[in-house]
């Protein structure tokens, strides 16, 4: 198609048909401010309700100002982005938004990371000329997410994330006019809804309306308690993103600095969830092999495909939406919970302390992990296997609180024995990683042959639904991958309808997998950041001396000393779980 010429602020630019004024302006370095607009390329996320009216521009021949984000360029269009009319309107609209926003920036969880705050800064708002009643809404403190909807600016990003991307459908705009807000039905608390706690609403919220439940203070309390041995585990995706919180380039791996910081914070043992990821592969991989061999032998009772179960958002989603499939996922616990179970048994035994005297803290890219750690089935006599789960952002906060100069920390290693891991565990942090790790081990255990090549490019990428067939030495194994719960739903619906068949499927709740988790430093709409985090994890994998979970010597040792064999009695008791039917029930009175 022929390009269209338009003029923006006296500069000519040629654009593809269908380009919006907003993007055309960006091409020539004019950054029209936005607030509600957000687009995540390749992740099926596009939010442009045209509601905030911050990006308005003047278009010659039009009676009213037009939103740049929703206005497509037409040939010969003349646009002005900085006339007094535009600037006055933009400032007035922003003042209006601010006039209905709690002025508590100083103590807001989002302070410094808030798009509304930076917009006010950019436009230099010094006075709000329009004051009046502020809207009041019910607050909500769920296990994972805090909602303070007075801070909502009705950008509707969370609604888009919850409904279009994740198809969870918990959020909707409710009421109308001045009283409108985004909320669950009947303004119920999240814990009464089918919320999966994936945290994607939090990840896209421009303000402090949706934030994680902050548990940093509970970590500090644990650290200063002399009676307790405090053990920390860090999920793979954390190391690829934590640096961003300290101004580093996205995709910078900070494994060593993170370890050092945690040690400085006073954790008694700095371990790695990657260790438990390797353990997960042992259990889940064995389970896959078990079901697969039975299936290949013609066992009709065996349920295939096997679905991965390390993502708690996905598990919640399954329990609410596909309870009929609750026997299909692997029964292996998630790495966070495997770690907790092993730490409070095997490792506590080693230290000779009672499990109650050990506090396990997990640092996760995820908000659903908070809820997962509180599930009753993951505690023994009221003592949870994982006591406190904090997000990457909360860890950054702890580090800042402790006056640690993160950027100049020397690299340190994890403690032994629960700190050792393979490359297979590292890639758990990205979509496709878990299944690739499983394939690496399953292949060798199934074929009893060594893999010729460890990098399964066919399983990588950011496409929402991917499928690949891996040749297990003559046996073709069909693998499906979905990230983002909307894609998961599509895949499962197709599966139920018989439109596709797989032996194994990996599902991650968050777009991109854990690298795009709801607890990660905010990407503010820049998908490049997720790509960089992803490639960082593959680099870390590549650099690891060991890249197959079953080769992790400490895992081998753990089975030898403590667990016996995968899926066997002790392993089953500590490392496996089961799922619940949480679908809405109609009770007839």
């Amino acid at each position: 198609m022929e390009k269209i010429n338009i003029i923006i602020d006296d500069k000519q630019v040629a654009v593809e048909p269908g380009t919006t004024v907003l993007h055309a302006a960006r091409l020539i370095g004019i950054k029209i401010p936005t607030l509600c607009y957000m687009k995540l390329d390749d992740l099926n996320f596009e939010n442009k309700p045209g509601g905030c009216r911050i990006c308005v521009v003047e278009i010659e021949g039009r009676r009213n100002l037009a939103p740049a984000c929703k206005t497509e360029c037409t040939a010969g269009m003349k646009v002005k982005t900085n006339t007094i009319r535009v600037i006055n309107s933009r400032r007035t609209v922003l003042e209006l938004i601010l006039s209905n926003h709690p002025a508590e920036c100083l103590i807001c969880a989002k302070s410094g990371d808030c798009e509304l705050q930076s917009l006010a800064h950019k436009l230099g708002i010094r006075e709000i000329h329009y004051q009046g009643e502020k809207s009041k809404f019910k607050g909500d403190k769920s296990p994972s997410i805090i909602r303070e909807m007075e801070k909502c600016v009705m950008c509707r990003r969370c609604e888009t994330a919850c409904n279009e991307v994740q198809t969870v459908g918990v959020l909707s705009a409710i009421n109308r006019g001045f009283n409108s807000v985004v909320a669950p039905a009947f303004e119920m608390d999240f814990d009464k809804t089918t919320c999966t706690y994936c945290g994607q609403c939090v990840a896209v919220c421009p303000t402090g309306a949706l934030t994680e439940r902050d548990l940093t203070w509970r970590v500090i309390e644990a650290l200063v308690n002399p009676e307790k041995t405090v053990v920390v585990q860090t999920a793979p995706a954390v190391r690829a993103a934590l640096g961003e919180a300290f101004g580093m380039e996205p995709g910078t791996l900070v494994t060593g600095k993170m370890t050092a910081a945690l040690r400085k914070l006073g954790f008694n043992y700095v371990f790695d969830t990657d260790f438990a990821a390797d353990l997960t592969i042992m259990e889940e991989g064995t389970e896959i092999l078990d079901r697969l061999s039975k299936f290949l032998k013609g066992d009709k009772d065996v349920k295939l495909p096997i679905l991965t179960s390390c993502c708690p958002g996905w598990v919640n989603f399954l329990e609410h939406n596909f309870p009929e499939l609750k026997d299909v996922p692997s029964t292996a616990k998630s790495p966070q919970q495997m770690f907790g179970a092993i730490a409070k048994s095997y490792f506590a035994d080693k230290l000779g302390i009672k499990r109650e005297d050990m506090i396990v803290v997990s640092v996760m890219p995820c908000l659903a992990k908070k809820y997962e750690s509180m599930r009753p089935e993951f505690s023994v006599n009221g003592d949870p296997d994982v006591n406190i789960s904090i997000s990457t952002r909360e860890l950054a906060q702890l580090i800042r609180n402790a006056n640690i100069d993160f950027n100049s920390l020397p690299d340190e290693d994890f403690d032994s024995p629960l700190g050792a891991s393979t490359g297979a565990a590292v890639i758990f942090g990205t979509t496709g990683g878990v299944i690739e790790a499983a394939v690496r081990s399953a292949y060798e255990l199934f074929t009893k042959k060594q893999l010729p090549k460890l990098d399964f490019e066919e399983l990588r990428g950011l496409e929402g639904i991917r499928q690949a067939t891996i040749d297990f030495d003559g046996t073709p194994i069909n693998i499906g991958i979905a990230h983002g719960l909307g894609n998961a739903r599509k895949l499962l619906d197709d599966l139920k309808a018989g439109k596709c068949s797989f032996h194994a499927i990996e599902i991650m709740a968050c777009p991109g997998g854990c690298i795009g988790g709801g607890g990660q430093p905010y990407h503010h709409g820049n998908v490049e950041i997720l790509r960089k985090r992803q490639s960082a994890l593959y680099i870390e994998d590549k650099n690891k001396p060991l890249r197959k979970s079953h080769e992790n010597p400490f895992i081998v040792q753990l089975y030898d000393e403590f667990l016996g064999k995968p899926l066997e009695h002790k392993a089953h008791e500590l490392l496996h779980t089961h799922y619940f039917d949480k679908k809405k029930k109609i009770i007839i009175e």
Partner: protein
Amino acid sequence: MGKFKNHILVCLGTGCRASQSEEIIRNFKTALEENDLENDVQIVGTGCFGFCEKGPVIKMVPDNTFYVLVNPEDANEIVLEHIVKGRKVERLLYVDPETKKHVSDSKHMGFYKKQIRIALRNCGFINPENIDEYIARDGYAALGSVISEMTPQEAINVVKDSELRGRGGGGFPTGLKWELTKKSNSDQKYVVCNADEGDPGAFMDRSILEGDPHSVLEAMAICGYCIGANVGVIYIRAEYPLAIQRLKIAIQQARDYGLLGNEILGSKFNFDIEIRYGAGAFVCGEETALIHSMEGLRGEPTVKPPFPAVSGYKGKPTNVNNVETFANIPPIFLKGSSWFKTIGNEKSKGTKVFALAGKVNNVGLIEVPMGTTLREVIFDIGGGIKDGKKFKAVQTGGPSGGCLTEKHLDTPIDYDNLIASGSMMGSGGMVVLDEDDCMVDVARFYLDFTVEESCGKCAPCRIGNKRMNEMLEKITMGKGEEDDIIRLKNLANVIKDTSLCGLGQTSPNPVLSTMDNFMHEYVAHVHDKKCPAKQCKALMQYSIDPNKCVGCTLCSRVCPVDAISGERKEPHKINAALCIKCGACMEKCKFGAISLS
């Protein structure tokens, strides 16, 4: 059965029905039976006559006697006197307010004299629940000739030639709209009739649907033929149960006659109509919001383009017109576009239906040629201001419109003149205000409405209107600050300039136009803390004139907050600090001693 010698047309519009016109019909039936006249006299329940002020109204045919303010008890007398004895019941005749004489024929009443009825041609004339009466008035003949004798483009050309413009507010040329929808390629297209009349004080569309539902059905079918749609949807307010009922009956009758359905009148054209209900949201009058509402969603508008002509209901090309626009279509085909163009003025052709309300003697539904002046409407048709008060302004276009004043009285009413005067046609609400109306308070009233009806999607409308409303409230409470007027004006302009949809963009009009025309009232409120119209309670004080007060104590006894004190037979006093300004004392005082200032 012999022929009826008389018809009694009884208005069954919502207004008259609310004043028991159904009871009147029942009583007529009984009275006729008692006098053995049921085969001589036919009783016809019709749509709105328009003259709601004097409802219930009935019309005797063939002598065209018009009875007003009829009570159910009057039915017997009318039968005995008018029908049996041929004597008019004088006390029920309309009295001309100027000549004080009885006027029996509606055509000689000022209210009807200047009207030309196109859209309302059948209202008050036929029984809307009987398709035969519509057909007798050449109903469906336009549809018949269009589908048998014209190509869609030829038919569109007729509409284009007529220069008919949308009667829903914006005034977009109807023929052009049809053509745009026709040009969009799609396997499925829709014709939508916007009957979500939400203006407070407007009831034009409802009256047409209640009085002449078939004309809308016929027009929708014509539109369907022109644009290539075979499904029509009427989106109607759920608050209009009578119109819904009549529409349902009409649709069924049209289907029974094969005037809706497959192969209409032996052609290859299929068309059917369904009804969707609104649920109380003014914004759904905006076409994109309306379409979302039809789809079962929140009625939030979306940015245009894309226009519904390209992507509308269920993502398909959709032509949306309002009720009155459609009601004009059959006459245009029956009588020709050149006939239509003889009515109206240069840029606006045909007629416009207005709901005339407020402080005017003849409240009701009127249809006048475009270009009629406000003076003619208010004083000739409307019979002037109620209670001999002074005319102050007329609000047109509802919450989207503005106020026109004395100086606009001789401006011909058309789309462009109204916009140039800071108001708009809107759907046709026309509320007359007199000297007792405070213009700041009127602006506040409309803002109240907009705040309540804003969908909340865009920030300027959601928050901006709330803030404007608060400022107006502040001003009417006597707490306005000097800067408020400047702020208010800036805010109004920004909301107008930046809001997402038509509702938001026009919502500041009541404020802007009252500021333009009555700035002195704003200044009086803000600067002098006075309400010139004596409407804003907070700025008023009740006081007792000691020279007139005889100390009867009536006022102090009626005061709900014991703010009035004084000895018997001594002048009383009002404690301003306690007074809640309920006005009860003033109402009670027999000596005119209490005044408001």
